[in-house]
């Protein structure tokens, strides 16, 4: 699971550099987020602009990250969702759970 992690002030930006977020790599992605939480980072933006396919395991990993962030009084927000990926969130009603932004800049700005 290739990600690019960058600290942008109080927010950590995770750019997922994979076409698929699925049952094969979602476990690793969960662990990558857990590492950040263990370092005390609780405000996360996940940028999915390169992801063209997400399955239920991918959604599960994001939900897990969201729960962990919330439990630590932080937040996990999403940006860059391609249309079919956005449809997945709507199908499973997760678009009402996550704050979803068009761009990374808007997502980061929403934390202040």
């Amino acid at each position, binding site marked *: 699971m290739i990600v690019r992690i960058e600290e942008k002030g109080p927010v950590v930006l995770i750019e997922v550099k994979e076409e*698929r977020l*699925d*049952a*094969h790599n979602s476990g690793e992605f969960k662990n990558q987020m857990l590492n950040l939480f263990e370092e005390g980072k609780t405000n996360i933006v996940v940028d999915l602009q390169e992801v063209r*396919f997400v*399955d*239920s*395991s991918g*959604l*599960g*990993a994001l*939900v*897990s990250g*969201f*729960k962990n962030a919330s439990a630590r009084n932080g937040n996990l927000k999403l940006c860059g969702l391609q249309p*079919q990926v956005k*449809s*997945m969130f709507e*199908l*499973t*009603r997760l678009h009402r*759970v996550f704050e979803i932004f068009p761009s990374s800049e808007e997502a980061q700005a929403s934390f202040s």
Partner: protein
Amino acid sequence: MKDSIEVDIKVPNQTRYLSLIGKIGEDIARTLKRYKGDREELAYHINLVLTEAMTNAIRHANEDDPQKMVHITITILDKVLNIRVYDQGQGFDISALPQPNFTGLDDHGRGIFIIRALMDRVSYYQSNGGHVLEMEKVLS
């Protein structure tokens, strides 16, 4: 002349083959010149149901056993898409799966819900020493 396709594949029981099978499903959708709906959306949906069904076979039915195989058939005949995913394991109780909790937040449990939402008919039954998850969709 009808659009008629039959694809029969066996892969090892490992999640690293999900993208291969998903891509085959997408490419099949893209061959359907007479499909009246959104072909790219259909491609995503076929990729998705194949991925979800295969993951269920690998994780739950075949219990992540690397010695087992997953057998998949994708058939289009008379405008009906039929996908079968065969596992060799103990199977799982499809009727015992609860509806996903849309108000709470579960990490798991959305796979079969997604398959049922996207396909017209879904059934799971015994076959040849294992089980098969069969999914059908009428293509417009």
